[in-house]
């Protein structure tokens, strides 16, 4: 085995792309080499702001291959033999070999030996192909070249066993030259091997090669700097990853800002730090509040210990935060409500009117739903109208992701009603599977109405999610609807909600596209599908979900309870036995159904006493089940159903269902149909697979 070492040196790669690029480069090299017969071992790869690094041990040559090609039988027609010679590239029949086969007759074959190739040649070809087809999320051309890379490519090292491999991409020939850090490195230098490269790059080049090492250093240094100053770092893993991709030689510095800025909402400060400046926020451990400090990671050490860098960064942050303070001051000159008319100027969607139109619709729908949610309709209406009013504030224009939070903050500062404040704050929740759902009743009404309206609107104009495309986040909205209903135990049928939404659209905005029932059905189906995904993610069995939802998927809360009870019941011995009995009965019915139509009508005279007993038990069970289901005591309903097991067992043991007497047979089948229908009150047992 020999060492293959590659470095691809370029101008600054966007931080968000680096980790994936490193992984892709390694994967593509390994699979490309494997296709050519070179198996990689001891693979190492790294990425940094300006480089992709790959090292593996590979064989010196690819293995020799021998291939046998089967031809026609020796007594085959001349034409077939000629064709075989041509395809095998032989001129003379004597060059072909003959295989003896006593059963089928002897036949011709050829054997070609493919000599293994030198790894140099293979690596060169694979590298060029990987680089020409590299999956960057966005790539560019540079200068006069047609070659695409993420940013201009500057150099390639490609060594096998220390020897330069002859290959070139974009007129850049592979060699053994690289360079270190822009300020701290001492210009270009040559390397002999991967270990030589690592050593020189880290020590003389001042470049930390591994993302993980940079990450650890930043994290530890940041913690230490904070601790030394009696502060506490606020962890931010994704920021840590990003920053580790922005620096080759990380140097952690503590900066500070004017404490007056702490009057701003902490979310604004944190967002300013994080998204605009890539700083880590810091808190005061004694109060848990933000402290007027931040951690900045520079890409170098400085002769003044970084004092100028920290000061400069502090100034930039101050400028940003003064902007925010200015925005806040400007915004608070008006009451939030005064922004309502300005919502006309924001388009919700070109076919769906303005945000104001949307707010009106949401207000009507939320008010209609309020009584079912124990919410005060007047508060709900007001909250829905105020909800989007922060979209035209300077603060939200600047910090879009704080929509809702900013409005809530302003309304609270005006001394507004607390429920309304909560509703404005929580209207977009839940934003993802791990986000909280609103729990205040006014907030629930607004958040639910907002999502339903969005879904119905986009369904109305045929903008449904397809495959991985969901530009309006409709799946998230539907999941939000499901979670809000379930986690707050809301007793509202989805179809009732949609009906209310349809009627609210008529009141609020008659100019929107007419909705026919197929639109509603399709949306109902979509929400049900999201509901199934939600149940599955919460550990429910797919077949049980289907078995229960087949009966009724409209009442999410009850459906969930039924699935849960059924899953619990089927894990008991009683449940398993009952299931097998029901299935047995179901199978008989299915078989009989194929032969002839099943008898309809009620059971009349039964002769066998087991059948009579079963009928009695069925009548009793059905009565109990309907009662318990009505009380939503699903486990009681299952218990009632399970009481049937003994009478059914005995019935099957002693009664022949397919009696010669057609009257008796029909009545037996009617009993089984009754059993199926009784079980169907709970779930479709035929749909259960396990």
């Amino acid at each position, binding site marked *: 085995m020999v060492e293959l070492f590659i470095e691809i040196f370029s*101008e*600054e790669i*966007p*931080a*968000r792309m680096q980790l994936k690029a490193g992984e892709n480069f390694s994967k593509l090299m390994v699979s490309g080499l494997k296709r050519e017969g070179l198996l990689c071992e001891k693979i190492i790869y790294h990425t940094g702001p300006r480089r992709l690094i790959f090292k593996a041990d590979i064989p010196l040559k690819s293995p020799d291959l021998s291939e046998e090609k089967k031809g026609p039988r020796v007594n085959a027609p001349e034409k077939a033999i000629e064709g075989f010679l041509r395809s095998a590239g032989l001129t003379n029949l004597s060059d072909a070999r003959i295989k003896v086969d006593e059963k089928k007759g002897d036949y011709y074959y050829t054997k070609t030996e493919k000599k293994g190739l030198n790894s140099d040649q293979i690596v060169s070809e694979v590298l060029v192909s990987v680089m020409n087809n590299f999956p960057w999320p*966005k*790539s*560019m*051309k*540079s*200068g*006069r070249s047609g070659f695409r890379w*993420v*940013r*201009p490519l*500057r150099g390639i090292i490609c060594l096998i066993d220390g020897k330069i491999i002859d290959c070139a991409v974009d007129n850049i020939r592979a060699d053994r030259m690289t360079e270190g850090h*822009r*300020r701290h490195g001492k210009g270009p230098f040559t390397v002999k091997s991967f270990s030589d490269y690592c050593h020189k790059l880290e020590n003389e080049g001042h470049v930390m090669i591994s993302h993980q090492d940079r990450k650890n250093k930043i994290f530890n240094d940041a913690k230490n700097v904070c601790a030394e100053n009696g502060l506490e770092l606020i962890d931010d893993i994704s920021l840590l990853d990003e920053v580790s991709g*922005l620096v080759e030689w990380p140097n952690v510095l503590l900066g500070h800002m004017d404490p007056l800025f702490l009057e701003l909402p902490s979310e604004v400060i944190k967002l300013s730090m994080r998204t605009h*400046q*890539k*700083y880590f926020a810091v808190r005061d451990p004694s109060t848990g509040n933000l402290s007027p400090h931040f951690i*900045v990671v*520079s*890409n*170098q050490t*400085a*002769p*003044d210990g970084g004092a*100028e*860098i920290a*000061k*400069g*960064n502090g*100034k*930039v*942050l101050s*400028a940003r935060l003064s902007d925010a303070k*200015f925005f806040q001051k400007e915004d608070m000159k008006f009451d939030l409500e005064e922004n309502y008319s300005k919502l006309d*100027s*924001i*388009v919700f969607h*070109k076919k769906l009117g303005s945000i104001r139109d949307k707010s009106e619709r949401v207000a009507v729908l939320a008010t209609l739903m309020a009584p079912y949610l124990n919410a005060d309709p007047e508060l709900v209406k007001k909250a829905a109208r105020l909800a989007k009013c922060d979209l035209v504030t300077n603060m939200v224009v600047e910090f879009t992701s704080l929509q809702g939070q900013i409005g809530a903050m302003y309304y609270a500062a005006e001394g507004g009603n607390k429920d309304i404040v909560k509703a404005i704050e929580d209207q977009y929740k839940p934003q993802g599977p791990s986000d909280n759902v609103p729990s205040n009743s006014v907030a629930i009404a607004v958040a639910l109405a907002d999502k339903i309206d969005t879904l119905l609107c986009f369904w109305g104009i045929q903008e449904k999610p397809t495959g991985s495309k969901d530009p309006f986040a409709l799946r998230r909205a539907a999941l939000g609807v499901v979670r809000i209903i379930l986690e707050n135990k809301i007793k509202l049928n989805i179809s009732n909600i949609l009906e209310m939404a349809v009627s609210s659209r008529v009141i609020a905005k008659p100019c929107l596209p007419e909705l026919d029932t197929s639109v509603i059905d399709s949306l109902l189906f979509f929400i049900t599908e999201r509901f199934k995904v939600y149940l599955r993610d919460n550990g429910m069995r797919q077949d049980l979900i289907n078995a229960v939802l087949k009966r009724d998927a409209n009442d999410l809360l009850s459906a969930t309870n039924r699935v849960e009870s059924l899953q619990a019941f089927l894990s008991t011995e009683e449940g398993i036995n009952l299931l097998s009995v029901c299935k047995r009965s179901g199978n008989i019915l299915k078989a009989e159904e194929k032969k002839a139509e099943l008898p309809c009508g009620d059971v009349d005279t039964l002769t066998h006493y087991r059948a009579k007993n079963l009928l009695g038990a069925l009548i009793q069970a059905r009565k109990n089940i309907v009662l318990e289901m009505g009380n939503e005591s699903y486990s009681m309903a299952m218990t009632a159903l399970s009481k049937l097991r003994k009478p059914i067992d005995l019935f099957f043991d002693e009664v022949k269902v397919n009696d010669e007497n057609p009257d008796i047979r029909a009545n037996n089948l009617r009993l089984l149909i009754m059993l199926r229908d009784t079980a169907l009150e709970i779930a479709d047992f035929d749909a259960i697979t396990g």
Partner: protein
Amino acid sequence: MKMKNNIKSVKSFQGLILALQNYWASQGCVILQPFDTEVGAGTLHPATVLRSLGNKPWNVAYVQPSRRPADGRYGENPNRLQHYYQFQVIMKPNPVNFQELYLGSLAAIGIDMDLHDIRFVEDDWENPTVGAWGLGWEVWCDGMEVSQYTYFQQVGGVELDIVSGELTYGLERLAMYVQGVDNVYDLVFTEENKSNGTPKVLYGDIFHQNEVQQSAYNFEYADTIKILEKFKFAEAECMALLELDIALPLPAYEHALKASHLFNLLDARGVVSPTQRQEYIKRVRDLTKACANSYVNKENNIKEKAWKN
């Protein structure tokens, strides 16, 4: 270890411009003067938009006064102006060491890169009104954006065969950083020189009244009806010039720029609704795209003629 006093920092706004011009002149750039039609950014100068099209190499640097009527703050905001300066560099094709040349320009204006942290942070540039986009970075100096650095990929809706490297320095912001000043009006524009009697001149001395008055015009007094007429005229003139038997893309492009500025004025006056806004932007983009196409055709024709002769 390099000491700070080895590097001469540029102490005035005009000194900053002179230093950048000298530096880029020494790198082989044509030092051009500003374009004489109102534009929103240095990129819109025909020396960038049109010259980045086609196959002729072209290196240029120039200052471009830029106008964004809606950014007027009546001279009351410390860093927002409706009229400001950009310094623009185009190198076509971008040289291999364009990044190093750029860093050299920072040294030339007195930024000590031992003491200050320079960073290239992903920022993909796009200008929908001229149908242009490119990949590059914001360049940060101690966390402050001091330049926009872009490799053009498309201009005027035309995919480029030869890529230009573009640098845009926001001169006021850069000067504020170099001079350590928090309010743009406090910038030293011209340093005092007792030996020849030059008094110290501040940025505010020159531009404060201009910001006050132009803001009033942009927001209160611009005659929107007449401006709309002018917009329509500029649009029609642009198209007419392109439809001539022998098209005139250069004057046509000027009219496209005029249309763009007039639209910005209408926007500042608050008479453009969001839906109209999109429509206006599209109209301007259609103009600049048509100009770009006509310019490229003309270039190709000229080249063919040169071959035939």
